[in-house]
């Protein structure tokens, strides 16, 4: 059912700067065949981690974006009644109408189970769904099999996928859920880590400019009353915006002006607060 543990350890990917601790955690979760639950501020690279694992271990990535209205069965499989009805009426397809199995389509989790090779399954923003969905899903992932009631067949995973689950929730997930996962909280990167991250994304960025950007960025994060603090993603986009501006140079930053605040602060309240405080700091 499950493949032997791949000896290949995860060491990070081209565009993802991995700290050692996280690498260890990923490798342990893979070896123990446990889902890894990641929490942390939005924009700290929870989702990117799954992409990086897939890239570095050369496994296909399957993403399940959880929605609030989602039912578990949608993630597992779908029985296409309408096509079958259509085929039974017109009979012009190559499918065998009496064989229901031909009308079963796999959902994301199902795809990961039937895949020929071991996959990385990213279950993104699990906290959006209600608690029942979460617990039921973990049951499926624990057993590594589910039933398709329409054809009375049990689907078992050929290879146990590497499962990464992300959550933005402030409040905890249910205990049975947590009991089945390994847990890691991605802390906000410190300046050194951030400098490496910038280095990976903008290899040609001058050191002075990077330092100036970082100084401004960490100062902006300290502003009072900000609801959604800018994170790594915002910083990278901001640097991208600065570089796209032909009139921009590092001196602008050191004089205290912060261009493109809108890239960093996404809520109108935050933006006006930040604009005020940025002026004051000049």
């Amino acid at each position, binding site marked *: 059912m499950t493949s032997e543990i791949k000896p290949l350890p995860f060491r990070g990917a081209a565009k993802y700067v991995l700290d050692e601790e996280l690498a260890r955690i990923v490798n342990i979760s893979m070896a123990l065949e446990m889902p890894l639950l990641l929490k942390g501020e939005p924009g700290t690279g929870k989702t990117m981690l799954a992409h990086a694992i897939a890239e570095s271990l050369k496994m296909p990535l399957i993403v399940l974006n959880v929605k609030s209205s989602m039912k578990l069965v949608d993630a597992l499989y779908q029985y296409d009644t309408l096509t079958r009805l259509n085929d039974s009426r017109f009979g012009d397809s190559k499918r065998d109408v009496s064989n229901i199995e031909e009308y079963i389509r796999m959902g994301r989790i199902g795809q990961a189970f039937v895949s020929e090779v071991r996959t990385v399954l990213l279950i993104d923003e699990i906290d959006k769904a209600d608690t029942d969905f979460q617990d039921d899903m973990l049951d499926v992932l624990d057993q590594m099999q589910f039933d398709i009631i329409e054809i009375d067949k049990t689907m078992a995973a050929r290879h146990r996928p590497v499962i990464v689950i992300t959550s933005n929730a402030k409040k905890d997930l249910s205990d049975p859920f*947590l009991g089945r996962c390994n847990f890691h909280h991605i802390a906000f990167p410190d300046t050194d880590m951030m400098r490496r991250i910038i280095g990976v994304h903008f290899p040609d960025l001058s050191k002075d400019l990077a330092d100036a950007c970082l100084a401004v960025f960490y100062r902006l994060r300290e502003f009072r009353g900000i609801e959604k603090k800018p994170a790594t993603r915002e910083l990278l986009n901001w640097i991208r915006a600065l570089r796209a501006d032909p009139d921009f140079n590092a001196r602008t930053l050191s004089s205290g002006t912060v261009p493109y605040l809108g890239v960093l602060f996404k809520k109108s309240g935050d933006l006006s607060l930040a604009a005020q405080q940025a002026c004051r700091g000049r």
Partner: protein
Amino acid sequence: MFVEFFYTLRKRGIPVSPTSFLRLQKALSLGLVAGIDDFYTAARCILVKSERYFDLYDQTFAHCFRGAALAEDFSEVELADAVRSLLEEWLKSPEELAAALGLSKEAVGQMTPEELVRYFLDRLKDQDGAHHGGSRWIGTKGTSPVGHSGHHPGGMRVGGASRGKSAIKVAMERRYRDYTQQGPLTEVQMGEALKRLRRMVPSGPKDVVNVDKTVYETIRNGGEIEIVFDRHLADRLKVILMIDNGGWSMDPYIDLVQTLFNYARSQFKDLTIYYFHNTVYSRVWLDPTRHHKPELIEEFVRKDPETRLVFVGDASMAPYELMHADGALYVGQREMQASIDRLMFLAGIFRHSAWLNPQPESDWTGTWSIGRIREIFPMFELSLDGLEKAVQHLRSRN
């Protein structure tokens, strides 16, 4: 292996399950753990399920494997905590602090922070044991200026908001501070609580195939395909939010109400917000300044009785404001009916109603008008817990 470590973790209050401990053993036996750093990371990601325990885990780990002393009692920490709040208080209002410590403002001004803290600590040491209701020592409910919930107007607050405990006791509970539900409600938390307050009704174009009906109709049709479409289910709950935005009595709760307001505005499609001051008289207002767009209470008869009516206010006022026909605060505002009759009128129109009170429930009994209003509208605390109950109430009488 490491059984003692496991029990120390449990003793320190980290909920570690035996299953996860066995899993750690499995990780060890698989040869995944090469050194103490590996062990630290592995044990944490397998055993600890929430970042709020990370700090505690670090302490315990250091104790078990590096021989660091585990702080058995928290006294140093608490004092540091108390000192910090003292300094915060000092920064906010030096005058009040001066009064609180029984020193002149100039004397406080001349003290360095260290001296100030020492003075405070000396005074703490004089106290032997919890002391409530006295006139000199730090405690609660007393007239001594240093402490919490005292009568002294400049009373300094040490530690949390818990009643009937000495301030230092409250400070001792620092471990719970980060995640108690007393903290300000965030929009996310409100969303969690209000999510279930929904009424799904079909709306919009018919664009969802109803499979069961399609099969049924097709067979009725003798095998000729008949596809049946349905409307999407969407939330069509109507909500009227009445917010008390007048007067100083609501001032401490502005942030809280603001959050609720923001959430409600983004969440409910059909939301009307009215404003009033203290209580409802002949009219409420659509604009926060309560001036331009008044709406007569009688007009509410025309609204859908299925609308959920939610009041937000502290419901605290003088008895005559509520009971007297001419009780309105504003000179020149003539009223025909007492406010309490207006409230009963509204409660009669809308079957589903609730009153959210930002004051903690424990304080309600002290205010006479709260008792009267509770007889008309079910009242809930504006906290995560209270919202949860209010939502349950608003749903239950469907």
